[in-house]
């Protein structure tokens, strides 16, 4: 019992570290995108001020219980994803609650928040929320296919469903990373990664600049603060997940920061270079090349 409580305390500390790291990443990405546009951009701590500002709104209204629970489900998805995988491999306090079958659980958590948001956004009664969530669910489902296939290939390669075991198998230098030992699965996973990170060219369902701003159209005040917080946690958690799966995990916080930052930059640079896909274009894109690569990865792992 004491062990569990101790681990819970450690996991909360990990959550705080990852949340702040995620908030700084969000601020930094805004600056990088602004610099590419030739602008100066907001200060790096702007996400903190935005959260404080939304928390200091004096009124909030609810459209019903699911509207209230939508952002809660969303943040449960982000925190759940983080809590069931090792953030830093071998560290006693950043090991979290990883267990034998966490690969399966993690796939559920990636999708869980989106489904919660779908229910919340639907209850808000706003038509643009419904359109946004429909687009988001369609695109994420398409992106999950190659990701799931890549996970199957990894599970077959290492004969395990535990992320900690997958990370353990990759220790001992870059030659042991799944990026080298299983390049086809890594390719499928990384192509899915573009869709799952919700950056341009796959962010049309968020529609950050248009009149309907996607699923969160009706969410405001502390609901929005919860979603802004989750955005940073979920962002960082997904980066850590991909680092663990394909790039050898991390043995210290420094290595974790370097690897996840490099991973994020791949998506950000692709996003500032390429224009946005419409939803039907992105779904078509996902079920052509990434899905084919994913199937190839599974076939290769079955061959061995």
């Amino acid at each position, binding site marked *: 019992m004491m062990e569990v409580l101790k681990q819970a305390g450690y996991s909360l500390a990990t959550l705080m570290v990852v949340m702040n790291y995620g908030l700084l990443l969000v601020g930094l990405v805004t600056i990088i995108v*602004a610099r590419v546009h030739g602008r100066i*951009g907001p*200060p790096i701590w702007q996400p903190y001020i935005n959260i*404080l500002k*939304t928390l200091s709104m*004096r*009124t909030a209204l609810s*459209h019903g219980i699911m509207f209230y629970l939508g952002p809660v489900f969303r943040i449960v998805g982000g925190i759940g994803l983080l809590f069931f995988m090792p953030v830093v491999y071998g560290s006693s306090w950043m090991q979290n609650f990883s267990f034998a079958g966490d690969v399966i659980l993690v796939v559920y958590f990636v999708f869980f928040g989106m489904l919660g948001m779908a229910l919340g956004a639907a209850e808000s009664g706003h038509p643009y929320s419904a359109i946004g969530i429909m687009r988001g669910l369609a695109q994420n489902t398409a992106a999950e296919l190659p990701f799931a296939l890549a996970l199957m290939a990894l599970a077959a390669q290492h004969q395990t469903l535990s992320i900690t075991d997958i990370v353990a198998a990759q220790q001992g230098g870059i030659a042991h990373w799944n990026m080298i030992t299983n390049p086809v699965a890594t390719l499928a996973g990384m192509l899915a990664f573009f869709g799952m990170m919700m950056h341009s060219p796959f962010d049309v369902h968020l529609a950050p600049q248009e009149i309907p701003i996607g699923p969160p159209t009706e969410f*405001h005040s502390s609901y929005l603060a919860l979603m802004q917080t989750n955005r940073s946690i979920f962002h960082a958690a997904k980066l850590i997940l991909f680092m663990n799966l394909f790039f050898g995990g991390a043995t210290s916080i420094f290595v974790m920061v370097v690897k996840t930052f490099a991973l994020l930059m791949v998506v950000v640079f692709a996003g500032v270079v390429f224009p946005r896909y419409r939803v039907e274009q992105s779904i078509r894109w996902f079920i052509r090349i990434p899905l084919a690569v994913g199937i190839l990865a599974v076939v290769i792992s079955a061959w061995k």
Partner: protein
Amino acid sequence: MSDEIKKVNGIDEGFDEISEYFCDARPSPVSPSANRIVRNFQNWAQANSIFILGFGTGCGAIELRPLFTARYDVSRYGLFPRPTPRQSSLFIIGGYASIKTMKRIIRSYEQIQNPKFVMGLGSCTVNGGMYWDSYNTINRLDHYIPVDVYVAGCMPRPESLIAGFDRLKELIMEGKAEGANTYAENFDWYKNNQKKIIKNWNMPEYNW
């Protein structure tokens, strides 16, 4: 007009079907935190992160777009476009407001959460400007919703808008930008003024 036709057209009684989506409760003023430190901190956060709902009612809105480009870039001052009234806190009325648009302005304004700020852009919002004797535009915006800052000019340049944002930030920091509470306290006066110009009031009495 018979009842059936009214329902088909969605005018007056036709609103019953969707009225459950709206809250008809009158707004009540919510005073800022009594603790001075907390209040100043909240005002600081409000001033340094302003989400803009730009309402391009007139030609003035053309001066809003350059603000987000490389030349003026207001994001460095903590101002961001946020095209939904629920999340935004600064409502910019971009020029003349016709009576038809006033209905949308009022509904959008009422959906913004407290504290909310309004900026009147261009002379048309101050006194009607070149449209002062027009049959279908309003002359003074602050008869219908409380306005915190006016940026006069026809058209005001983006630089004047940035100066207006600075003035608004000062007002917020000093705790003087309490338009939402003013609106709630003088609700009947504002509603009376609004109903004087809007003859076909086919919207909820108060729309949160």
